């Protein structure tokens, strides 16, 4: 091990420099960057965009959702308020974040023609697909490229000559509402990820990896890396002890308080409810999640980190709850409202992609389930839920999930010619559970 020699800052800088060199001065048409959770993907996108624009090379930016586009516009404007930026949006109502209207450098329009000549124009892949140009852009940045479908890239690839593709291969894969098995294994399988297709046709493209997660603490990076990125490991940017959670109010000895203390100490906590088959919106588990959040806020938490000399108070906006299903999120929101908690983000894994909090409370996707479907075993879902936190992650779960997994031995079909990038969902679930078991707090509500 090279723990002693490893300088995360230097490693990350080396990676970023190489990426920017390939992007600005390389000869290949594409550059691919894999970014594990919290490795500074958005920072990289913004920096690459600014450097390209600064070099007088106009570019288009493709992201997958309106929220992602708006977020990038805000970050660009924050870094360089004077840079003229175009936000191309759909003609629906509420097509973009109204906060953009207050930014002097940002011009918004539903028509690409209105934004001609601007150094940077950003939009979603869906909107770009409707744009026609006579002259393609010389540069593009494609963000969240692993969440983009191959057919979506096909629709926009004619708009640019070369591009930087950035994304996290460990998050949820794109999906289709109808079967596309007949194209599985084809290099251009339309429901595969854009990066898979790109690399299948252009295997010589430079591929980079951001090696350091600045978000995940030293307690989380090894587990997330081993369970979800076994073949492309990464490190935490901070060492053990650099991040710390402290609470002004001591534990009252209850399950929620004990699991909070365990998580503050070790970075992980498992609040284990008695084994029982429950509906998705398991009222006891939902109440337990809400109780943990309530106590997190009530106990006067302080987050010590490398970011600042003084600890940051653990406020509602620094806490999030993650679930697998929308109805579970709705039930948690209702339970939180009953406890008078406001300002805590509660969302599904899909919607938490790319977000970051100090502490997350996760309702385990398999908690109380009588069965384990492919949906619940999907590695990306668990990976998203287990990698949103800077300090600690508390998982609420019914006992018996490992036995449930044993009853559902992995029998995933294999398509010839497709790339294996990740461990099986079954295996990843077991790996995470085995780790959580060491931080278990039994709880009888």
């Amino acid at each position, binding site marked *: 091990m090279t723990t002693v020699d490893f300088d995360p800052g230097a490693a990350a800088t080396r990676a970023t420099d190489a990426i920017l060199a390939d992007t600005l001065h390389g000869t290949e048409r594409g550059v691919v960057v894999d970014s594990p959770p919290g490795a500074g993907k958005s920072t990289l996108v913004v920096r690459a965009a600014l450097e390209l624009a600064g070099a007088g090379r106009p570019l288009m930016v493709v992201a997958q959702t309106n929220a992602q586009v708006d977020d990038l516009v805000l970050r660009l404007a924050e870094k360089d308020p004077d840079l003229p930026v175009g936000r191309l949006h759909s003609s629906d109502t509420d097509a973009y974040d109204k906060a953009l209207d207050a930014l002097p450098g940002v011009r918004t329009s539903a028509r690409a023609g209105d934004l001609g000549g601007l150094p940077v124009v950003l939009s979603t892949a869906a909107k770009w697909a409707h744009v026609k140009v006579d002259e393609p852009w010389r540069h593009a940045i494609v963000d969240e490229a692993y969440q983009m479908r191959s057919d979506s890239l096909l629709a926009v690839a004619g708009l640019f000559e070369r591009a930087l593709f950035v994304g996290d291969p460990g998050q949820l894969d794109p999906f289709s509402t109808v079967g596309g098995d007949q194209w599985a294994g084809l290099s251009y399988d339309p429901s595969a990820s854009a990066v898979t297709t790109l690399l299948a046709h252009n295997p010589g493209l430079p591929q980079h990896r951001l090696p350091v997660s600045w978000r995940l603490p030293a307690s989380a990076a090894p587990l997330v890396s081993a369970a979800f990125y076994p073949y492309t490991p990464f490190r935490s940017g901070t060492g053990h002890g650099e991040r710390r959670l402290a609470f002004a109010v001591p534990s009252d000895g209850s399950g929620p308080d004990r699991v909070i203390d365990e998580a503050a100490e070790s970075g992980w906590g498992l609040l284990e409810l008695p084994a029982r088959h429950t509906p998705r919106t398991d009222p006891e588990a939902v109440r337990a999640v809400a109780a943990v959040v309530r106590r997190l806020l009530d106990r006067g938490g302080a987050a010590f980190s490398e970011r600042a000399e003084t600890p940051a108070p653990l406020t509602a906006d620094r806490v999030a709850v993650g679930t697998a299903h929308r109805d579970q999120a709705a039930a948690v929101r209702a339970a939180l409202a009953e406890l008078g908690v406001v300002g805590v983000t509660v969302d599904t894994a899909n919607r938490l992609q790319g977000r970051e909090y100090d502490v997350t409370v996760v309702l385990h996707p398999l908690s109380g389930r009588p069965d384990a479907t492919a949906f619940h075993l999907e590695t990306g879902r668990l990976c998203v839920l287990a990698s949103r936190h800077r300090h600690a992650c508390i998982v609420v779960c019914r006992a018996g999930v490992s036995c449930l997994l044993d009853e559902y031995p992995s029998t995933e079909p294999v398509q*010839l010619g497709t790339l*294996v990038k990740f*461990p099986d969902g079954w*295996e990843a679930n077991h790996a995470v559970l085995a780790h959580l078991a060491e931080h278990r707090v039994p709880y009888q509500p």
Partner: protein
Amino acid sequence: MDKAALAGALGAPSDYGQSQFALIRGNTFEARVKADGGAELLRLTHTLLDPAAEPPAGAAVPDLSAPGPEGRTARTALALREAVTAGGWTLLDHPMLALDVAGSPAFLEPDAVVVHPDGGWTVVEIKSFPMLDGSADPAKVGAAARQAAVYVLALEAVAARLSPPPAVRHEVLLVCPKDFSNLATARAVDVRAQRAVTARQLARLTRVETIAEELPEGTCFDPERPAGELTAAVDAVPATYAPECLSSCELAFHCRERSRAADAVTRLGRPLRAELGSLGTVQEVLSAARGESGDPADPVVAALRRAAALRAEALAEAADREAVPCP
């Protein structure tokens, strides 16, 4: 344990026989692939997995026959070691490998193992389902990959005893008939994921021993025993029947009968249980839906009643509509 014979004796035979047409065709295909000292098989391995190595001409095909599975296992281990020392290409036709499963050895017989000139080992799986225009039935490929992963683990145990340990390749060679013909075609299949899963399953398999310990003393699965006694013996083993079992287990029909007798909802499909919480039988669910039992504050019960009401409303609406003669 011969589960098919056991199922027959229980009075619930499975339809698991194999057609002799398929059997003959499968054997013919394997023989063809391995003909001429495995020339075609080695050519495929070279082209797909190790193109940088020297072409395989005159590969060694050691005799692996020995008395008993233990003897054959030992003979295979020896042949593997010799092949590594000798260098060049070696084809092991039907080697025998042992794998520790919950404390007792299980003997495995892969179709073939190829030793590369660099000393690395590749598992070869020969299957009779076709690769049509380069793609094959994903369920069957998945099963083949899981099977190959077990062989990889067993080979790794052999390799670990050598010094230096040779590399067991995590890409296996899957050989199938091409399109509609009986010509061989092959693809490399990455079994790292299946290998990791199998390794964990084996580590967790101590549960088999636990199950054995919990069985009543004297429990015996000999198909020659009277049916009543057998049923009692089999029923002593906990099993969770689900419809998917029908395609993979010889005892599925027997388990299905048990599941029916217990009125279990899972026999209608696993996903069905997802929203039923702790309600496990058909009677429990229906009576909760009809408002005859269950706590209305329980979200499962509430949802069931809501579903039952909506269903009744829709059926009544449809009945009304039919009652009106068409204009």
